[in-house]
């Protein structure tokens, strides 16, 4: 920046903070750290995925069809939330709440279906205590399901806030963070689906 020696320089200048931009950026960083968590788990998975210890193998444990159904559910939820975000952008609160509600319900289906799978596996004696492979299997899937569950609660909270507070700056920034959170979960799910379910089925 060239400085004009003759003019009196500008020494002070107030600036207006960008609340939304600041908050979503920080949350994005947080999501990146979340991605690192998954990466570390996938690194562990790459080591443990053959450690069956005489227990069930990955082919016996995973159901690729269930994985695919899960994918469809999750992607649908993400899409619905995306539509909700468009409604927010044009200020339609009712539509936003409706889309969020739908997204939450579909996501609940996802969590329900996965819990059913977990319960089924446990019933067959395929518990996380059985082998190194099952430990990482349950932790990877369980952590993702936990994220989805937290996301559902978050959506409920945001529905309340949108209804009662309206689209104020803090509420909007939280909604944007929710969106980022949800879309990241979808990206992570791709890895879970392909590497745990599909490659697990291939063996």
């Amino acid at each position, binding site marked *: 920046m060239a400085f004009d020696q003759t003019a009196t320089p500008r020494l002070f200048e107030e*600036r207006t903070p960008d609340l939304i931009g600041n908050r979503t950026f920080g949350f994005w960083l*947080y999501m990146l*750290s979340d991605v690192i968590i998954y990466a570390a788990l996938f690194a*562990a998975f790459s080591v443990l995925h053959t450690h069956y210890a005489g227990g069930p193998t990955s082919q016996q444990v995973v159901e690729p069809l269930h994985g695919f159904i899960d994918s469809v559910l999750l992607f649908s939820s993400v899409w619905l939330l995306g539509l909700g975000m468009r409604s927010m952008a044009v200020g339609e609160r009712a539509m936003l709440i409706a889309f969020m509600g739908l997204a939450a319900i579909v996501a609940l289906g996802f969590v329900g279906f996965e819990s059913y799978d977990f319960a089924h596996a446990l019933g067959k004696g395929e518990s996380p*205590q059985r082998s190194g492979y099952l*430990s990482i299997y349950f*932790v990877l899937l369980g952590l993702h399901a936990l994220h989805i569950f937290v996301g559902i609660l978050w959506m409920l909270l945001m529905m309340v*806030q949108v209804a009662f507070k309206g689209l*104020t700056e803090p509420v909007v920034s939280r909604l944007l963070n929710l969106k980022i959170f949800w879309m990241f979960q979808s990206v992570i799910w791709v890895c879970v689906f392909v590497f745990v379910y599909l490659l697990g089925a291939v063996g």
Partner: protein
Amino acid sequence: MLVPLQGHYSFWLGRLSMQWVPYDNPIIVGAFVFACSVGLAIVAGITRLGWWGYLWREWVTSLDHKKIGLMYMIMGAIMLFRGFVDAVMIRAQQAMAAGPHTAGFLDASHGYLPPFHFDQVYGSHGTIMILFAVTPMLIGMMNIIVPLQVGARDMAYPFLNSIGLYLTAVGAALVMLSLFLGEFSHAGWVGLTPLSELAYSPGVGVDYWLWALQISGIGTTIGSINIVATIVKMRAPGMTWGKLPIFSWTSLSMSTIGITAFPILTVVVSLLTLDRYVGTHFFTAGLGGDLMLYKNLFWMWGHPEVYFLILLPFGVVSEVIANFSHKQLFGFTTMVLATFAIAGVSWSVWLHHFFVMGQGPGVNTYFGIATMLVGIPTGVKLFNWIFTMCRGRLHFDPPMLWATGTLFLLPIGGLSGVILAMVPADYEMHNSVFVIAHFHNMVMVTVFAEFAAITYWFPKVFGFKLDPTIGKKVFWSWVVAAALVFIPMYGLGLMGMTRRLSYISRPELQPFLYVQEAGMFMFCVAAFYQFKQFYMSIRDRAKGVHLIGDGEVWSGERSVEWVAHSPVPFYNFAVTPYIHQRDEWAWRRAEGHVRAKPERYVDIEMPKNTAIPFLMAGATFVFGFAMVWRIWWLGAVSFAGIVALLVLRSFIDDTEYTVPAADVEKHEQQFFRHRDAHSPDLRPIEQAGRGVYL
């Protein structure tokens, strides 16, 4: 789901029972009495002075980044002291227990600490020093300086900032509690598996270690996010990336490591926790667990963590050396590039902590070479500092002494690291005290830089200097102490002494251990001077060294933080400065803008105080405690409390208050009057005029 446990268990109290109170150990009872009396004295003192309300309003609930930073520093200092006491105990035990004929006291067959107790002291020393002493002090420094250096009024997320502080404090509190209730981990600061698995460590020690790391690790991640966001988003108008001061650059690189590495700690600690609590098989010695996976994940965090500790000190040294050489920092761009090169390479070197694991030579070569590459950017930095000093007007005030000290420590520690990076050499020296000597040498760089920073920025924050005469004594006693303790350690390592020994079978090593013991004595002297320095300086703050100025304290300051007044008002800048140069203050001084005032003042928005972080800390502490003792109902209740507080916070909208322009103006006027009355000696600087700027 849960694993079966040995020993007593009850629903309401979990594993807790009187058996866990170590009332029969005279050392711990002594420590307990000491801690209680100090605690009581502090409580009594505060009550007598009637400070509770003040502390609550001005500190505990404050979101002011400077106060949070100070609390970080104070916590770090307390933990530094605790870690130091551990070190004294370790050194004394080793000096006493060298050879089969050495005497034993207090249940120990040699020395005075039985192995199990010694291992706990050893584990807590490492854990405390790295995670609860040095790290909080670094984060505290960033907290105070980074917003000032980027010309902001606070961090990007003041609320999260406070949460980060309290999470770290909770971790530290858990470690402290383990001393009096239960035990601490005996598996070293790295939590060696499978020793740290439930089968081999059935007590609560490892659990304390796990939860302390888990909670404080999350705090550090949050803190790092905050710093990065502050630097990226909150820079003052005119401050392009090229004008970002070096300390902020290093903060940025350190915090990127924080964001990317600490989540791995979260993972590795969680997996070990699952092993110990629900019986999974991640790192167990059977049923498909993999011990080496633990080492892999731990060091995947651990190595970036050690560079996390060194990058910020590089920034401090750069600032201090430029200041006290009265010159611009030499090779600024290469300095920044070197910083990021180190941060980047730190992602390809972690295996050097377990070269001996048994993997193929190709892998070892890759990691060995990558490790050695770190020496290059480090060397660049060293030369840059030397060239900065070259032909400068050098002033050896205490900050400069500490900074110059690091220039000697760095090559010794770095080169010993490069020696360890040679795989065949590491096969010989791994797990010997040579490694300990290496990393203490490096961590000394961090500590020296922290002392440099404290003495350098103290007047910035408080408006008066620490006594330089005592400061020099602190420095020299540290130098002697560090030399006496760590140089023999290199020798001991090469002679084959392994680490973590509570008994040394070779009496011929004892002379070296005695030399180290002499070094510990010097450390005590240094600690004494350190206390004296603070005590005397604070007591005599009104005499002589009192300084209130337009920033200027040392006469060579360069970067933006000095544009703010000293001591810094709570709003940092009455009106945000427009940044023209990387060394904005040096430029303003040269151009004669030192006393420039804004034409008009404006309303300022500041974050409101809140008690929620503190309450959350309380709930988190209870949660950690409940989990250590496996009191499930209490864990559930406290966790629900944490969530409820977070939700509550999300419903509070007026988190800021406005300082009206008139109040700002009044405050500023008052400051100017005070300054003119007290610091007439500051005028000549203004007259120095153009040409000083280099």
